[in-house]
């Protein structure tokens, strides 16, 4: 009868919970190195550029950070949604749709200048929020699976946006499939020229603080986490179920729209066909790696941007193709949602 109550130490717990994550990152990188040796004739060069490429010039470095910006913003929205049990996986469509709406609105509101840009972002966030919110409403009303509905809606929306970009809203002055460019007054200013890094970075960092405050420093956040941990308990404690089935979907959709519109205002200056492909999924993976903690979203997004821009430099300077990074990302995906691996460092609770 030597009952030993395990002492709970938050620091040790946190360190242990990192073990699984490190393992996942590590396995992915091993996969990368392995593939490089198999696929490349100059594997040393490939690996060198994969790891160091993003740091070789200010331009590549700035672009890497810039690549992380939409991932941070989208990842924050997903963290909030997943933390409350709303499995929004329609990010691709929500981001793309939001970007298009922002572009069209800002063009229409050109006379308003900067104010027009702010309104455009707001409108985009509302529209994508509603797009994602539909899944939440369906879940609340008829218990329809959010995972499936958000995905289906998103896929359909991507195709419809494609049509709008190549059809009615195509810019006749360009040979790219793209809308008209946004007015210059709406463009965000660059931070690290000649790279694309722009002031949207500030928005992303601010969003981290706001979402953190919302999730951990407010009653809404408290109830949201309660609902995510155990919906039965939350219901028992009198939490408004409708609100927490719909609101997180709305917020994550709106955050995706923010990510999309800032990419347009800062980087692309027009909605170009397929500009966002993969961003939605990557933001989701970022949130999974960060395990839904807003501050952890930043390093996770940087990690993802690093893999992607590393793969790009390896492609630029060596002989591999860009698909290498999709294999690495697939490996991360495969492992990142595994409960067993996530809890690798945590002991089974026994005497």
């Amino acid at each position: 009868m030597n009952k030993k109550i395990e002492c709970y130490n938050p620091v040790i717990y946190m360190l242990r919970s990192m073990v699984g994550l490190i393992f996942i990152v590590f396995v992915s990188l091993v996969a990368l190195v392995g593939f490089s040796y198999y696929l490349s004739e100059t594997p040393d060069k490939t690996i060198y550029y994969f790891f160091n490429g993003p740091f070789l010039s200010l331009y590549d470095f700035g672009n890497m950070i810039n690549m992380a910006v939409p991932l941070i913003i989208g990842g924050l929205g997903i963290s909030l949604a997943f933390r409350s049990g709303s499995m929004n996986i329609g990010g691709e469509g929500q981001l793309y749709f939001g970007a298009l709406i922002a572009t069209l609105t800002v063009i229409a509101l050109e006379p308003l200048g900067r104010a027009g840009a702010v309104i455009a972002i707001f409108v985009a966030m509302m529209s994508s929020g509603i797009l994602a919110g539909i899944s939440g409403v369906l879940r609340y009303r008829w218990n329809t699976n959010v995972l499936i509905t958000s995905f289906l809606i998103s896929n359909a929306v991507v195709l419809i946006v494609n049509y709008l970009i190549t059809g009615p809203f195509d810019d006749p002055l360009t040979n790219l499939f793209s809308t008209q460019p946004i007015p210059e007054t709406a463009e965000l200013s660059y931070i690290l020229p000649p790279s694309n890094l722009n002031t949207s970075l500030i928005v992303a960092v601010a969003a981290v603080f706001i979402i953190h405050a919302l999730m951990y420093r407010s009653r809404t956040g408290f109830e949201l986490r309660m609902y995510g941990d155990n919906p039965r308990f939350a219901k028992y404690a009198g939490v408004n179920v409708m609100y927490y089935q719909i609101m997180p979907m709305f917020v994550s959709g709106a955050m995706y729209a923010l990510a999309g519109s800032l990419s347009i205002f800062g980087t692309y200056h027009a909605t170009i066909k397929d500009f966002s492909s993969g961003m939605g999924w990557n933001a989701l993976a970022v949130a999974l790696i960060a395990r839904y903690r807003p501050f952890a979203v930043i390093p996770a997004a940087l990690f993802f941007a690093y893999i992607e821009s590393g793969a790009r430099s390896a492609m630029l300077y060596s002989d591999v193709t860009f698909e290498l990074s999709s294999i690495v990302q697939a490996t991360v995906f495969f492992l990142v949602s595994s409960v067993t691996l996530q809890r690798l460092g945590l002991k089974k609770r026994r005497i």
Partner: protein
Amino acid sequence: MDTVSSLIFSAVTIMTPLLLAATGGLYTELTGMLNIGIEGLMLLGAFSSVVSLHFTHNIVLAILIGTGSSMLLAAVIASITLYLKANVFITGLAANLFASGITTVLSFHIFANKGVVTFPELPQMPVLFERGTEAVPVLGPLLFGHTFFTYLSFILLFLSYVVLYRTPFGFRLRATGLYPKSLISVGLSPKRYQFIAFLISGFFSAVAGAMLSVNLGAFVPNITAGKGWVALVVIFLGQKRPVGLLIASFIFGISEAFSNYAQGIWHIPSDFILAIPYIFTLVAIVFYSIYDYNRQKVE
């Protein structure tokens, strides 16, 4: 051929890969697992079977390699999902991502070509029972004049019906999806049947993929073009029953054949046509959940 016959004929051509992939997906669906990875499994099967056919010139070996590689990927999805307790949706997505990456990478590595790889030396798939096509009005184009794969898909569907509803294995497999504890209570492992179902799904998807590439005598990146997703829709629309799959995949076939035909008349934007399957499924799933919700409420 008149318009109706030709529509029916091309509907059957379009439905064949869908039917094959959906039949495979039926196994996973009946064990209660949502197999999102069908698309990736098809793509990998399409690539590996046509490439191995090119190198070995041996159809048996090509089938083995093609189905084998898809089953390997299916085993990876299944083991990570079942034994490492990962979300089946995300592992399925990873499989899709992986398949599209690895086929391009390997095609570049083997043929120094990221795009279309053609194998002009591969023989055309022979067309069977061609004489009957125009002999009988509606049934003719439905039943005659198709390639080996179409008949294979019918045979495999029938076999699957037998396996699922007439063998002990099928009973256990369906019991897994209906009530896994019933297996546990008699000392069988539901996970084992889920794993096997994934392997079978990998096999069927590979055959469906092989049809796309071998028929064409070429591998084109992203050759599956969303057919794996449509196959999932077919499963839901067909109410998870073999006959339902047959009808649902034919509905998809005929609607796409019709939209191809209609494009020449009305110029419907192709993106809208591509979006139809997703909207269709969404509506189907919402209706199903309303039905389910009301049924549970009554009880």
